[in-house]
């Protein structure tokens, strides 16, 4: 029972960690407070669930869901860079639209996957490891995401992405269109978020229209915990650090549930955790001045 609780938190933390990395890309690397996330995580789950009950290969749905998330990011990017709508509002507009779109995709507010095969049913490790089947599959996906992202951030385009959030004036003077870079960052971030959503849907065995509410705060909480643990100086370590942050965050949520809080209290608890972290001066100075979630 106890071990089961740990493994579940670990698995959830890893899956949501992919979402948290998406949040890290927009909020931290790009310095763009993107609220699309609440919608694109549901989008990922919705696309996968619908495809799975239609009979597609669950692994294929991972890819399609990721792609769908990229489109969501494109829309937010379009609103911001082409129509000059403020970042926050651009994200909220996409998120709101996605609510209707996700309902359209699913055809109803909830799709159960209990009687369908998911990636976790298809992936089978023989021998005595089979009880860790799900964990190993999740670890594999997380590893692929981490390696892809870290390698990407070492390319010229990756450098441009990092610099755009840091100093857009410098980036433009390096002959780079910061608008394109923002667009690319939003696409990558929301692809990750939707991939995470697709995994969550298959892991928990259903997609639900309201499953995305509060995702952004959970993502931020994971990012902040990861940064406190790893520190912000070691750039390439912070990315795995966020996964660890996400695992710890899920762990504390599970712990809160076990200590008697109702599931409906969790959003409030999470918000309180984030507020606590953002308002603690010592931690704040430790994090440096780049937290744009706070009012100046």
């Amino acid at each position: 029972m106890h071990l089961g609780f740990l493994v579940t938190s670990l698995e959830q933390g890893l899956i949501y960690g992919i979402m948290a990395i998406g949040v890290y890309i927009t909020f931290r690397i790009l310095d763009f407070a993107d609220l699309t996330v609440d919608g694109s995580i549901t989008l990922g789950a919705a696309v996968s669930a619908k495809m799975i009950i239609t009979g597609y290969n669950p692994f294929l749905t991972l890819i399609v869901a990721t792609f769908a998330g990229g489109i969501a990011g494109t829309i937010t990017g379009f609103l911001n860079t082409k129509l000059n709508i403020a970042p926050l509002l651009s994200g909220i507009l996409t998120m709101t639209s996605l609510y209707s779109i996700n309902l359209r995709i699913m055809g109803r507010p909830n799709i159960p996957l209990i009687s369908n095969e998911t990636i976790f049913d298809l992936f089978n490790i023989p021998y005595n490891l089979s009880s860790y089947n799900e964990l190993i599959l999740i670890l594999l996906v997380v590893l692929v995401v981490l390696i892809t992202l870290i390698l990407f951030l070492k390319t010229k385009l990756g450098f441009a992405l990092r610099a755009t959030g840091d100093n857009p004036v410098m980036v433009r003077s390096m002959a780079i269109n910061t608008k394109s870079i923002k667009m690319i960052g939003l696409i990558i971030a929301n692809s990750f978020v939707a991939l995470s959503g697709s995994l969550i849907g298959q892991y928990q065995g259903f997609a639900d229209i309201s499953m995305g509410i509060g995702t952004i705060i959970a993502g931020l909480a994971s990012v902040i915990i990861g940064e406190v643990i790893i520190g912000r100086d070691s750039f390439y370590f912070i990315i795995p650090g966020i996964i660890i942050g996400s695992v710890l965050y899920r762990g504390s949520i599970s712990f809160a549930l076990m200590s008697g809080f109702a599931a409906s209290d969790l959003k409030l608890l999470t918000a309180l955790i984030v507020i606590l972290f953002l308002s603690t001066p010592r931690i704040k100075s430790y994090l440096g001045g780049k937290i744009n979630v706070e009012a100046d």
Partner: protein
Amino acid sequence: MLKLINVTKTFNVNTFNATKALKNVDLEVKNNDFITIIGGNGAGKSTLLNSIAGVFDLTCGDIILSDKNITDMPEYKRANFIGRVFQDPLMGTSPEMTIEENLSMALNKDTNLSLKWAVNKKKRGRIKEHLSEINLGLENRLDTKVKFLSGGQRQALTLLMATIIEPEILLLDEHTAALDPATAIKINELTQKIISNHKITTLMITHNMKDALNFGNRLLMMNHGKLIFDVQGQTKENMTINHLLEIFQKKHKQGFYNDRAILSLA
């Protein structure tokens, strides 16, 4: 090589706050010109350089570079042939990235959107070489984040980044103004060295009249959005600070009387 024709910039057009920062400026810059620009606060010096760099749309006028009309070209595209160093040492570099990472972006200026590795062995060699030329020991600190550098070190780095791929035009906006006097002298010497080594056409704003006379082959004075004085070659060599002050006061007064005249007409 660079021509400004009737360049006018009014900020906040059609509002109560409308500011005419540049008024019908005509300027022809020749190849290898090193022009120093002086003028009082708010004279329009920065606006002039920003117009050339394409930071904003002009109210009217044209900018021609090497026979190409670049008036409508966005800022980031002009950056392919324009190098810039700003007054604020924080503006020219990415503080969270390392010295090497910053310089690599400058070296990759025309290929910055590719998925190739940003840094490789060959590039690291070139970066070290360039860094050792500026004599600050930065070549041994490639992995230091730029936010840990002093203002002078950052300006030297920015200068290097702006010129590492030789630009057609270099724009310097009081790039030593935020530095202590000793560091300012060093950066000025470095500027001089880079510009003369590579023969880069340069426009340099300065508040230091001595620098304005010592550097370059041509001097412009601005006032109220206009070029009020333009001197070059031997004539410039023979000028003194007193000459400059005299001219400035005379022109300034003229402007003042003109303003009064307009007011009394209204």
